[in-house]
């Protein structure tokens, strides 16, 4: 058992087996179908939330095998960082089952949630993978922070600084990320929740950018978090690893971001779930993450609310929930834009699938995160309502709801309505949703209530018991 892993990871990065990146990718691509066969893993597109513990356990074992055999690819040295089964099992056993994020009255406890758990999801929010304009960024963050059902805020990203495009690695990145961290701090202060957990400032792309957001007065604090990313699939580099050293010393929460691609190196949904499980183990071993962003995504359409994506959330979430104390949050990437009913149906489907499968709620990236300013507080409120109302539901019940919600948008999923940006669905003065956006929200909410899931009231009972 190592007590100080980081120097050891550098040592293995320098001394591990050398391999070209393309060879590593080929090796991974080849091994995954073999593991699918060995463990008898099957994806059923008609069962989006499987209720099969054995399947979940086999998925986990396949992910563990993949991780042990492939190791982690360090792009800086082109070497594999290898771990033994004992090392991984020890590290997983030491992962905390619960911890506090944020501080004071605004803190929340993130707890490991089992399958079909009655523990409410922690609700993260903010512009998930979606760029914001300099002009509306402060309003977007404030609209999220002021939502009573939201527990945490992500600062999101802005691509310009005083109109200049931000180039990573230049002073503009430092200037911009410090501004964005301060904007997030100001948003939660304005909302009367000055110590709410901020889970990341996404504008920076380099280590220097990330760590320059830390400032206990105006920026990120030790009770906040920052993302450390993996590159697809199972890859890291020294720029990412250097963040670990800094954040561990500051006592910040490390948030492990992975983006396994369905249709990419992992193949279909089964293979991608195996990769996703291995990615979580990477986050444990190399990043010592507090929690993880379960951020799988369709290779072509930047979404995870299709059949494969929803199954991936449910199957992978259950595999991790049943076999580890690891905690993850989702990142719901809808195809539809904001201000549309479809976006809400997509959110509802993913929210239910994740809630019963042990995953916390991480926020929404409308239009696959492709369009500026497609974030607002209202869809995060909606996500929280659906999630809280799903507590205690069986997986079979959840599967029924998810299939029903999915049926509402399946036909138009890949040809979605574009929706409207924040400035057109919120009143900037009052910071309230427009009537049009509220009407869509009420329409979908009422429709969900008619299916038997009382999202207008059930969340109240959940909050009453958990507060």
């Amino acid at each position, binding site marked *: 058992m190592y007590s100080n892993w980081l120097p050891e990871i*550098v*040592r293995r990065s320098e001394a591990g087996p050398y391999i070209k990146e393309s060879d590593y990718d080929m090796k991974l691509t080849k091994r995954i179908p073999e593991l699918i066969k060995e463990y008898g893993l099957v994806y059923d597109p008609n069962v989006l939330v499987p209720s099969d513990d054995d399947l979940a356990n086999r998925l986990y074992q396949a992910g563990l095998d993949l991780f042990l055999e492939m190791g982690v690819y360090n792009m800086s040295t082109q070497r594999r960082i290898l771990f033994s089964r004992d090392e991984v099992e020890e590290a997983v056993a030491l992962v905390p089952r619960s911890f506090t994020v944020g501080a004071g009255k605004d803190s929340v406890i993130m707890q490991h949630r089992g399958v079909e758990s009655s523990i409410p999801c922690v609700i993260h929010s903010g512009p998930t993978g979606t760029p914001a304009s300099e002009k509306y960024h402060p309003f977007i963050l404030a609209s999220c922070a002021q939502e009573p059902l939201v527990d945490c805020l992500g600062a999101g990203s802005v691509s310009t600084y*005083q109109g200049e495009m931000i180039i990573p690695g230049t*002073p503009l990145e430092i200037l911009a990320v410090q501004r964005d961290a301060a904007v997030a701090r100001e948003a939660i202060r304005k909302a009367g929740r000055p110590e709410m957990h901020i889970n990341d400032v996404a504008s920076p792309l380099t*280590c*220097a950018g990330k760590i320059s957001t830390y400032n206990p007065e105006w920026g990120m604090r030790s009770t906040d978090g920052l993302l450390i990313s993996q590159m697809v699939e199972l890859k890291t580099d*020294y720029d990412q690893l250097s963040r670990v050293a800094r954040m561990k*010393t500051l006592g910040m929460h490390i948030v492990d971001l992975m983006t396994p691609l369905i249709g990419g190196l992992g193949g279909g949904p089964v293979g991608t779930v195996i990769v996703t499980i291995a990615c979580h183990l990477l986050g444990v071993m190399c990043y010592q993450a507090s929690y993880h962003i379960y951020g799988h995504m369709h290779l072509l359409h930047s979404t995870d609310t299709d059949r494969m994506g929803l199954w991936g959330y449910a199957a992978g979430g259950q595999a991790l929930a049943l076999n580890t104390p690891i905690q993850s949050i989702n990142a719901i990437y809808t195809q539809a834009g904001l201000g549309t009913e479809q976006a809400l149906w997509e959110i509802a489907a993913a929210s239910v699938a994740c809630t019963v499968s042990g995953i916390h709620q991480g926020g929404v990236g409308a239009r696959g995160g492709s369009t500026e300013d497609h974030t607002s507080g209202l869809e995060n409120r909606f996500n929280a309502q659906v999630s809280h109302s799903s507590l205690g539901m069986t997986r079979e019940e959840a599967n029924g709801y998810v299939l029903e919600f999915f049926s509402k948008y399946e036909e138009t999923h890949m040809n979605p309505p574009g929706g409207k940006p924040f400035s057109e669905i919120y009143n900037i003065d009052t910071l309230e949703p427009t009537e049009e956006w509220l009407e869509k929200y009420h329409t979908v909410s009422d429709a969900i209530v008619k299916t038997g899931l009382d999202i207008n009231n059930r969340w109240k009972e959940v909050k009453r018991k958990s507060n």
Partner: protein
Amino acid sequence: MFTRERLLEIYQRSRSGKFMKEVEYDLMLAKRVQELLKEYDIKYDPKNVCPADDDMADRVFQAGLQLLVDVGAYHLDTQRVIKFTKEEVLDCLRLAPDTLYLGEGKDMVIAKHRNIEDPNPPLNLTGPAGQACDEEYYLANLTSYAQEPYVDAIESGATLTYNGYDIMAGTLMEVLAVQRDAATAREAVRRVGKPGMHIGDAATGMTAIGKMAASEPINGLRPCDGRLVAQMCELKIDDDQLNRVPYLLNNGNHIINLMTPLTGGVGGGPDGVAVVSVAETLLGVVAYYADYHYLSITHIKRANNSDEWGMYVLAMAGQAMARNSHIVWTCDPFCVSGPVTDELLYEVAQHAVISTVCGYTQHGVGATGGFEPNHHTGLEAGFQGEVGVATANSGITREKANEIALKCLKKYEATFDTPKRGLPFQEAYDLKTLQPIEEWKECYRRVKADLAKWGLQFTVGPWD
């Protein structure tokens, strides 16, 4: 003068300025320096290393200003030249601070602009000057600096390993090591009862990431502390250095403009390098928003500045800035000799005398020119501060400083080709008591006695 935020403007100019290969820039600079020496009639006299010529000091300033305006700064990443107008430079200079509050609480010191032959003694903001120290001795070594009575601030020096592993810049090992070293510096000042003493830098950090990682309000570097932002020789900057500026500005840290002009390099001889030094100082004012400046003149072969050339650059650049600006700036003696030799203390002494009469605040010391790890101790650093105070208190003039410096030079110039590297810290000090060995104290007493004979009035020092 800058209508937009200055950093943004510098960034834009670094992307839109004239493209030029680095070697072409060097040639342009070298040529222009020689032209300016003629235009401004600046001449070096090896017998007068500390000239008392106000008019020449003013001409050196004007030449340095003209050099920066003419050649601009070279951005290594984009290979573009960032130009500034004379008005912009002077306007930034107008905005530069003349008084600094370094450190915090009872341990805070106030650094003010110093004039030529200023009767106010200089502060001594010292430390290992970036020289390497083993992990094993690092805390003891820094404590040896912090405990010296003529030391007002330390900088945290550099280590080469972390838990025995080599530190590679840009990896997590750099971050781990910098955080450890910043905390070690904090512990060193705490142990000597000066927990708020200014810490000038965490020199293990070679990248912007490393420098940023030193920040931590309890155990690391605080807003009252500083961080170096360096120039590459000559007049060159890059994004990694510039990235530190907005970070340090927003964190309220002191920004220290580090310059290492090479005597015998692109700037040519001592007269040219004095002009380059002025230009680099002004670049630090404009591009780095420097609170104070750190001139580390370096001989191109020996890495020292204790020869006549180094003395002249120190004297003329210092007088030029003292008379034509209100900035606070420091300089360090880089020496060929090492601890437990008389030669090291003579090298330090001449530097302290010249720099004190030429308007500097003290910084140092680079024993052995940084060639030998662990060959640096608190004694020579404290001695520099003591000589600086004695120089100011004795009313030493530039003429007298020239005389003392040349006397010192006689004591060690024969060793330039066969330097006495002396002993490492762990042999020069008793590591239990943290006191210098008797032999090292005797060196201190001998050299101090000579300096007293030559006109410096000392009070009782720590190792008398």
